[in-house]
Every structure is written in structure tokens, then in C-alpha cells.
């Protein structure tokens, strides 16, 4: 907006100057108007009255232009001045920030060597600690596996013993049954029945005969 007003003022001022130059007889060559003003100042006395009126006209034109253009021009230049000040302030702040960053980077660069050394030392310490931890974990896992293996072995041994005992008992029973089938005769069967009769319990209130 301010830029547009500035262009308008400049165009108006230039147009006024051209008009003034035209009044002074220089309209045929607008590009040479300033030169015409100088020529006006050094013109001959014969043309003195005409030049006076022209001068008055020019003064009036300038007065009118100043009257109408003073406020917009003041605002334009004030806004432009403010923009420039803000730009300068922004640039100053950017410069300060860049300088601060530069200072921080330089400080970091100065400390980077000591940081690298500290980092290496910390890495070595962490590596040692991790190695110890892994060694302890491996030892614990090994111990656990050994205990588990012991437990499995013991239970397997127990199961094998039990199975062996069952097998031996079954074979002994089968062998005994085979022998008994071969050797048991009627007399033996009768004795078994008699023993069964003898082994039967007596009733609680039963008193054997005297």
C-alpha cells in the first residue's frame, strides 16, 4: 500500500514538474525540463514579466502539490522508515543469533576432544559391565541347566528303577505261577481250602469252645 502511494506521489510530482516546464515553454522537450528551469533563472530582462508569472504559477503549483502531498508523503516515508527499522532490527537479531550459535559451536569444538575421551572411557566401562553381566547370566543359566539335567536324570533313574522292579516282580510272579501250576496237585488244593477255613476270622462276640 505504502509502495503504491509512493509510486503515485512520484508520478504526480514528476507530472507537476513536467507541467511547470511546459508553462515555461519547454513542453516540446520534457526530458530537458530541469535544464529549462536553469535557463529560466538566467533568461533576459525582456521576458521578465512573463517569467515572473510563470514562476508564480510554478510556486503555486508547488504549494498546491505540497499541500496535498505532504500528508500521504509523510505517512509513506514514516511507514517506509518503520519497515527499514524493523528490517534492521531483524537483521541485528539474526546476526546475534548466528554469533551465539557460532560461539556455541566453537565451544563444542573446544570440548569435543575431552568428550570423545570421556565417551570412550564410558563405552569401555559399559562394555566391561555388560560382559560381566552376560558372564553371570551364562553361569546362572548353566547352573540351572545342570540342576534341571540332574533332576531329569534322577527322575529317569527312579522311573527306570520302578519299571525294572515291576518287570522283575511280574517275571517272578509269572515264574512262580508256572511252577505252582506244575507242582500243585489235588492234595495241595485241599490244603489251601483248609488253610482258608482256618484263616477266616471269628466274629467279635464269638467265644471258641473250651
Amino acid at each position: 500500500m505504502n509502495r503504491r502511494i509512493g509510486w503515485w506521489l512520484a508520478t504526480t510530482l514528476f507530472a507537476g514538474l513536467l507541467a511547470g516546464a511546459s508553462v515555461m515553454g519547454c513542453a516540446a522537450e520534457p526530458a530537458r525540463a530541469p535544464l529549462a528551469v536553469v535557463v529560466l533563472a538566467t533568461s533576459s530582462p525582456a521576458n521578465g514579466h512573463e517569467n515572473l508569472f510563470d514562476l508564480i504559477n510554478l510556486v503555486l503549483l508547488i504549494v498546491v502539490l505540497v499541500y496535498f502531498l505532504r500528508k500521504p508523503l509523510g505517512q509513506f516515508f514514516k511507514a517506509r522508515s518503520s519497515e527499514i527499522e524493523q528490517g534492521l532490527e531483524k537483521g541485528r537479531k539474526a546476526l546475534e543469533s548466528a554469533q551465539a550459535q557460532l560461539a556455541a559451536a566453537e565451544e563444542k569444538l573446544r570440548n569435543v576432544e575431552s568428550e570423545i575421551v570421556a565417551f570412550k572411557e564410558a563405552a569401555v566401562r559399559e562394555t566391561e559391565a555388560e560382559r560381566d553381566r552376560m558372564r553371570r547370566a551364562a553361569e546362572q543359566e548353566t547352573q540351572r541347566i545342570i540342576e534341571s539335567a540332574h533332576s531329569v536324570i534322577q527322575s529317569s533313574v527312579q522311573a527306570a528303577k520302578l519299571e525294572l522292579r515291576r518287570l522283575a516282580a511280574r517275571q517272578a510272579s509269572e515264574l512262580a505261577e508256572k511252577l505252582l501250576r506244575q507242582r500243585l496237585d489235588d492234595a495241595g488244593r485241599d490244603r489251601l481250602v483248609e488253610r482258608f477255613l482256618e484263616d477266616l476270622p471269628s466274629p467279635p462276640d464269638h467265644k471258641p469252645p473250651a
Partner: protein
Amino acid sequence: MPQAVTQRYARALAGAVERQGKYREVAEEVGSFARCYRESIELREVLESPAVLPQAKLRVLERVMALLELSPIVRNFLRVLQSHYRLHLISEIQDAFERVVDDRMGVVRVAVVSASPLPPEQQTALENRFVRLTQKAPAIEYRVDPNLLGGVRASIQSTVYDGTIRGALDRIRMQMETA
């Protein structure tokens, strides 16, 4: 629950028979009907089906009872069972009734299993021994199982007296296994 129900019906029947004292006859009649009920699928289907009307079921039951020539007291008992929807428990009721009858008549049932048939003198000796043991008249049922090898095994209700070689071998084998 079914055991309590069958026991209640068995005691009721025994109470009804008590005056006449014909426990065994009634037990046989109930047993014959229970056997017929167990062996005839058609009879069970008719008497247990909810699709058959109670009057039709009663007519079928009356016909079966007439064919079996059951006594009036047993017929009444079976009608009661039918009206109370308990006829499907007839086998259990028969067993319970026989136990009640045995108890009232002072009889104890003994199941004797031996490796070979027992001679009469050994059967007599066993009977006398069970009289001494139970203080009741034993009704002994003999059975032969050659797998026992030798000896006798007697069961009185839930008590088992095992004097067989098979039992001895099993006990020895278990002791060897657990030793």
C-alpha cells in the same frame, strides 16, 4: 438318590408281604418280571415312552402280569411303580428287596469262587464256617475260576476273604513293586 428310592420301595414291598410271609415267592415273581422287563426291548419302549398314554401302558402291564401269573400283591406293587413312573428301576428294586428279605429271614449271601469245583465235604465245611462267622444262615453261590490256581475267595456283601494263590501272587508282586 436311586438307591434311596429303590430301598424305600423294597422296604414297602417287604412290609406288605410280611403278614403272609411269602418273601421268597414274591421275590421270585418280582425277579421274573424284572427279567422280562430287561430282556424285552419292546416292553421297555412301550412302558417308558412318554408318547404312550398311561391307560395303554396299564393295559400292556396287566397283560404281561397275567401272562406271568403274578400274585395280587406283586401286581399291585407293579401298578404302583407304573403310576409313580418308577418301573424302569425294577431291577434295582428287585436287588434291594432280596437284600431286605435276606436280612429279615436271617440269611447272608456268600459268593465263593474256587480254582476247581469244591467237593461236598468242603462245601459243608465252608457253610459251617460261614455260619460261625456271620451268625446267620449263609446262602452260598459257588463259582469256578481256573485262573485263581488254587484256594478259595469268598465275598460277603462288600467284604472279601481271599485265600487264593492268585491273590497271594498279586499281593507279593505289589509288595515287590512298592518295596
